[in-house]
């Protein structure tokens, strides 16, 4: 019987699942994911996590708890940095420790990904992580390559207009229709977690809007736009948010933008100001921040989204 390893369907799952699944599968492990977020998962996460932490991390706790009895190992990598000169969110660095601190957990696998130190260092860390599962370096290399290939296919699919949920479930997006296009910016784990976002993407499509999200833009575009800031941002994921929003503010390809952010997110609260300043420029598309937390009722979100779509339709007429 193969060893099972659990990957919580939360946080960086939406960014790197194909890489992780390909890699761990290549090492001979059986990957198990938690189900999509539901009320039980959210409630369990909110109860287990520290009260001050942001909603997506609370959701992560809930997913870990739902996997806990079902797997031999938990895969919670320490993603320090995914590129040179930039870091991920500080909470991601401490994630494995935070989960261990809950107590009574399966063993947590926490390989370090720190691309800031160069890809040679990453390879070394990958090997040292994988050696408990195989003694053959070639097998590790093949497994990693497999993961990287899967990831490349995933990103290509995102750039062709599929959402992460659509790619990972293999369900093609509905045919795009509607007169208006709305850019949804924010962390993928907020936007694409349908429970957390209260189905924002589907809701907008149902109201007759075409929807594009930050993860559908090519990395180089996002990078170039983010570099328009006088000072380089040192958080990779926030750079993606700023870059995509800046791109849409100038490209004329969207009629409006919704920035979905979670209440207790430090980086989000800073980025919000940057985006709002940029949105004041003449001719920029309308920007609506949409804050979510565990107390958010659907009614408030629906009212705002309806009013936003009305506003865009009104302008188009």
């Amino acid at each position: 019987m193969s060893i099972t390893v659990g990957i919580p369907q939360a946080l960086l799952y939406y960014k790197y699942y194909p890489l992780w699944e390909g890699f761990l599968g290549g090492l001979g492990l059986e990957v198990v994911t938690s189900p999509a977020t539901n009320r039980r998962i959210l409630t369990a996460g909110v109860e287990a996590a520290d009260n001050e932490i942001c909603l997506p991390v609370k959701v992560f706790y809930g997913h870990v708890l739902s996997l806990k009895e079902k797997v031999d190992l938990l895969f919670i990598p320490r993603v320090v940095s995914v590129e040179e000169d930039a870091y991920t969110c500080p909470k991601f660095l401490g994630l494995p420790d935070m989960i261990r601190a809950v107590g009574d957990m399966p063993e947590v696998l926490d390989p370090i990904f720190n691309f800031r130190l160069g890809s040679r260092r990453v390879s070394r860390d990958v090997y040292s992580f994988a050696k408990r599962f195989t003694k053959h370096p070639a097998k590790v290399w093949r497994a990693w390559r497999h993961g990287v290939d899967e990831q490349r296919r995933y990103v290509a699919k995102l750039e062709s207009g599929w959402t992460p949920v659509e790619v990972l479930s293999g369900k093609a997006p509905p045919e795009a229709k509607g007169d208006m296009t709305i850019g949804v910016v924010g962390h993928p784990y907020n936007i694409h977690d349908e429970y957390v976002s209260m189905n924002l993407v589907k809701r907008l499509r149902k109201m007759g809007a075409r929807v594009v999200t930050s993860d559908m833009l090519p990395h180089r575009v996002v990078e170039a736009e983010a570099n328009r800031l006088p000072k380089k941002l040192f958080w990779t994921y926030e750079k993606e948010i700023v870059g995509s929003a800046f791109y849409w503010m100038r490209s004329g390809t969207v009629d409006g933008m919704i920035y979905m952010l979670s209440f207790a997110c430090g980086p989000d609260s800073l980025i919000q100001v940057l985006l709002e300043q940029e949105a004041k420029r003449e001719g920029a598309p309308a920007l609506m921040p949409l804050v979510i937390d565990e107390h958010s009722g659907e009614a408030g979100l629906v009212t705002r989204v309806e009013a936003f779509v009305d506003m865009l339709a009104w302008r188009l007429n």
Partner: protein
Amino acid sequence: MRKANTTGIHLGIDVGSVSTNLVALGEDEEVLASVYLRTQGQPIAAVQRGLIELEAQLEDVPLEVGSVGTTGSARYLSGVIVGADIVKNEITAHAVAASFVVPEVRTVLEIGGQDSKVILLKQGVVVDFAMNTVCAAGTGSFLDHQAARLGIPIEDFGSHALKSSSACQIAGRCSVFAESDMIHKQQMGYRVEDIIYGLCQALVRNYLNNLAKGKEIVAPVVFQGGVAANAGMKRSFEDALKTEVIVPKHYHVMGAIGAALLAKDSIGNGETKFKGFGASSIDYRTSSFNCKGCANNCEIVKIEVEGTVLARWGGRCGKWEVQEVEEEAAV
């Protein structure tokens, strides 16, 4: 029944958390009748009472209902009850009404029972808006509560504020702290009118610093919603913004006026779905249950008349929403 067209009267119904408002607009979009009621947590009963009162006011008007629109937090529920031609969110409804009354309006300040909004317009088109989030500090409910605590009828709250010669400094960021601040000031012996005016200023400060943060407030400014009745709030806004603040004649039913205007626009030459004023005597029953279909355990609300399900909603997935299923089947 006469075939409905735009020559009839147009009804707008705004069912909010605290008040339920109904208006009837005539052929020239003039307000023929208006009703302002407390919702008292019973939106269906409030709509039914409102319809009775509205019908009574319209006794001498020989016109049929041409269209009806609903808005407010209970817009979907009231839409089912009356047979709405259009169901619109209250932000759009308020913007439409404000630019109807003051066509050149640039800023709408709206403070209702439990929410507040700021809407910015340019040439009659909404360009930006914000609505308060989880916190209800500074809304009508809080003023209501404070008026009751001071033993002053809410209707007189504003005129008391105007008597003030020097306002007290009250913390307006949070209702709970504002209340303890007010009690403290009372115990120290400050005059009630100075405390009340201080409270108005605190609420305006809170509104401008939180809700309207970073938004450029340009005149003409229209102030509407139930709280616009409070002359102390109007004066505080004028002091803070250093510009005239216009309170329209029908400030308390602007959402309903917006809904009626939108209904009139949407109906064209079509026929209204209005169920008639008789909807006030129908026995609507609502019930709710927890769906066991998945781990979400959504609370589904059901509205029935004599065993027939009119509508169901509240689920994360669409499986209980009969209303939509029926509409799709009808197409």
